[in-house]
């Protein structure tokens, strides 16, 4: 089509995504029955589109790896037969398979492994959103424009031939009158087809606009500091009509707690001297969440709030606020933590002379390339120290790009929210009423033991990830030792 060339120059459009900001792919580390698996689901970007699933599986005699996409509420009968993954050449433990993601929303990708130790399935939550429109390759655009021009001129020529010659008896030549009529018809045909093309372009623009509207957009949210008797409070408000609208049926499913908290809120100082906070605001109604403000350095902060819907859809809300000079507060959640110290390249200071060391760090990172971020607790004598579970995990990492366009909250189990995994695992066919599954999950939630004998794990923590775009990044790693949450800050540059 001729008009194809017109949009050839459009820039690649990438919008922020709900499930984490600017980082649409999913990492999952866990098990499929007896087999340890590391699964990466590369987002298709367009919906409906193909997501690429890569499974790294260790274990004896793995024979078959299969995967299928399951929409959260479509039931087992709504899952298509699984696709068999293909072994990656040169990497005997890696398997890959493309899967069609047809609608936006919460999917679970079911990865099924069959081998010498039997069978097992891993459920990977994928929050599917459309994030981009692929621009037309200029070469393809010009080729299409060329064909379009031939088709246009061909159609005009056919009209001329039809009027001028087609009704003549064999071997007769068209007279002057027919030739003139032929030319007039060709002119009229040109005008009509040009009008049709204009109409087609208008239609195309409308389709394009519709699609842009269906792209994932950032929900409106605000953050502000309010004064109360006990000290300053951070108030976070979900202001979006998608959440607060009156039409109950159109509203997303309710929120469920992740590690016992409805919201995990992160404060990130906009400059390097700024602090970092990990708070757990309590909801005063379905849209307003409040937490005592920790004594962080004053300045401009970005606010990222992670929530998980009952459907398993994980979403990050983004706002910004100005923090006042620090003052003491009371009544903070005992899992709240904050940090305002030195940002390091390789090692952060912990209490008691211990350090958190970024080990096996490559000289540089490349955008889009799989990178395992490995951190080790080194005691003062360089032995590996222990960590206790903090919010159900051996460690948390928060990755934020310098421009604030990438934000992600990582665990050793990947980018997925544990609540999403539970919601997709424990959903029953009878969970047809909103909130029933959420209530069950909340009742069965297991908060961290704050008792005197917490479980102690080896202090080696790995986070699977790939930096999505080039630029400067800051990473905060949080662990709990001897009942105290400790934070170390790192920085790196990604090419």
């Amino acid at each position: 089509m001729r008009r194809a060339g017109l949009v050839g120059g459009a820039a690649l459009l990438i919008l922020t995504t709900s499930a984490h900001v600017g980082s649409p792919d999913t990492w999952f580390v866990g098990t499929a029955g007896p087999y340890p698996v590391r699964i990466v689901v590369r987002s298709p970007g367009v919906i409906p589109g193909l997501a690429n699933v890569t499974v790294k599986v260790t274990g004896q005699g793995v024979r078959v790896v299969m995967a299928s996409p399951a929409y959260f509420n479509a039931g087992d009968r709504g899952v298509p037969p699984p696709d068999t993954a293909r072994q990656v050449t040169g990497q005997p433990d890696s398997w890959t398979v493309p899967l069609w993601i047809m609608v936006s929303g919460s999917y679970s990708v079911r990865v099924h492994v069959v081998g010498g130790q039997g069978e097992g399935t891993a459920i990977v939550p994928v929050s599917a959103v459309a994030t981009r429109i692929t621009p037309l390759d200029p070469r393809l655009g010009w080729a299409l424009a060329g064909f379009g021009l031939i088709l246009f001129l061909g159609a005009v020529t056919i009209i001329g031939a039809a009027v001028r010659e087609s009704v003549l008896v064999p071997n007769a030549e068209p007279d002057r009158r027919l030739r003139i009529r032929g030319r007039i018809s060709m002119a009229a045909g040109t005008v009509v087809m040009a009008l049709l093309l204009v109409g087609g372009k208008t239609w195309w623009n409308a389709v394009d606009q519709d699609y842009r509207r269906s792209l994932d957009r950032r929900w409106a949210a605000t953050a502000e500091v309010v004064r109360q008797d006990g000290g300053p409070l951070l108030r976070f408000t979900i202001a979006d009509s998608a959440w607060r609208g009156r039409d109950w049926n159109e509203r997303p499913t309710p929120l469920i707690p992740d590690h016992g908290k409805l919201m995990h809120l992160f404060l990130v100082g906009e400059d390097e001297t700024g602090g970092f906070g990990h708070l757990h605001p309590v909801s005063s109604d379905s849209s307003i969440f409040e937490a005592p403000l920790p004594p962080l350095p004053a300045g401009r902060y970005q606010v990222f709030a992670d929530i998980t819907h009952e459907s398993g859809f994980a979403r990050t809300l983004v706002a910004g606020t100005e923090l006042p000079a620090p003052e003491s507060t009371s009544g903070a959640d005992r899992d709240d933590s904050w940090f305002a110290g030195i940002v390091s390249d390789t090692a952060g200071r912990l209490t008691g002379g211990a350090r958190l060391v970024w080990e096996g760090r490559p000289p540089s990172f490349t955008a889009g390339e799989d990178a395992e971020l490995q951190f080790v607790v080194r005691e003062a004598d360089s032995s590996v120290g222990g960590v206790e579970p903090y919010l159900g995990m051996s460690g948390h990492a928060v990755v934020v790009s310098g421009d604030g366009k990438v934000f992600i909250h990582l665990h050793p189990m990947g980018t997925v929210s544990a609540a999403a995994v539970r919601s997709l695992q424990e959903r029953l066919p009878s969970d047809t009423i909103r909130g029933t599954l959420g209530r069950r999950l909340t009742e069965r939630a297991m908060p961290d033991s704050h008792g005197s004998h917490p479980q102690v794990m080896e202090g080696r923590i790995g986070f699977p990830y790939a930096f999505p775009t080039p630029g400067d990044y800051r990473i905060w790693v949080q662990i709990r030792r001897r009942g105290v949450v400790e934070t170390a800050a790192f920085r790196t540059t990604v090419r």
Partner: protein
Amino acid sequence: MPAIVRTCYAVLLAAGLIVIGLIWDISWHRSIGRDTFWTPPHVVEYVAAIIVGVSCGWLILRATFAKGSPDRGSMVRFWGFHGPLGAWVSVWGSLAMLTSAPFDDWWHSAYGLDVQIISPPHILLLLGMMGIVAGAMLMTLAEQNRAGDSNRRDFSMMFGLASAFLLLMLVTATFEYTAAPNRWRGREFYLICAGTFPILLALAARAGRLRWPATASAALFMLSSLILGWVLQTIPATPKLAPIENPLTHLVVAPFPILLVVPAALFDLLHRRVGDGRDWRLAGALGLGFVLALLAVSWPVSAFLISPAARNPVFLGGQWDYSSSPGAYRYEFWGNLSGVSTGSTPWLAVKSLAFAALLAMVSSRLGLTLGGWMRRVRR
């Protein structure tokens, strides 16, 4: 057999393959969903495009470059080449089909796999397919119009078949708005049918040389649609895209075809009564007659077609896509003649039908003009 006639058969065969491929492809998308370039229906469609390219291309090259080609006198000129008008239209169609393939491919990567029939690259594809079928129609017409009385009937039959294929393509293009019998009591159904089909029925009535040309086209259209449905529904199929709202074991097929044979018979009758020379008056009668005849048959028959009695392999009731969730809507009429959800009145319904009759009149008038030209096409 002369080369032109051989090409005529080849293009008609291609037109038939195009129709089979298209109908099969739509069933494929509604039942299995997953799409690659190499699905069997796509292969059928592109084989048809290749048949057209090779047969018409050979005819054109030979007529253009062979010295003293006897066929050249019954051909038209195109950029220095010689070929029958219908062959040029078919070649244009296959080129449009080829162009639509990379366009559609990019469209999928830009806006996602399309789950509707009507999208800009699909319109180009449909235009290409219709070009091939219309080319077959024009080639058979030229043969019909040049033939002596003894062998005219064969070409007239072939023209009837080609126009039936074109009718099936037009019906398929409007599939999303007209196919479900649940729509057959709605305003939109009558407006779209009135704007789209009378042009082809009027054209067939005027250009065909059979005794009931429009009726034959419409009957062949309904028959081919039914045969395709009867056969395709026996092919096992499993949906391969999530979420599957409606689990399936076989291909779902198009519902019972629109009952165009009744308005078509009226067209033949009126056309014979009024004759040539009074086309405006004739178009007025055809327009009004089309809407009233379609209404008279669609209204009662649609009730049968959405009832349990039609849910069988013969009447093709209850055929729902893998992605359509169950609901009472399957057994209800969608929309009404007034075109409003509340406050519908007989007056609004009459207004809708009158507007439909006006559209059908314009469409018929165009069809009569085109048919008049087609009756004289000799090249």
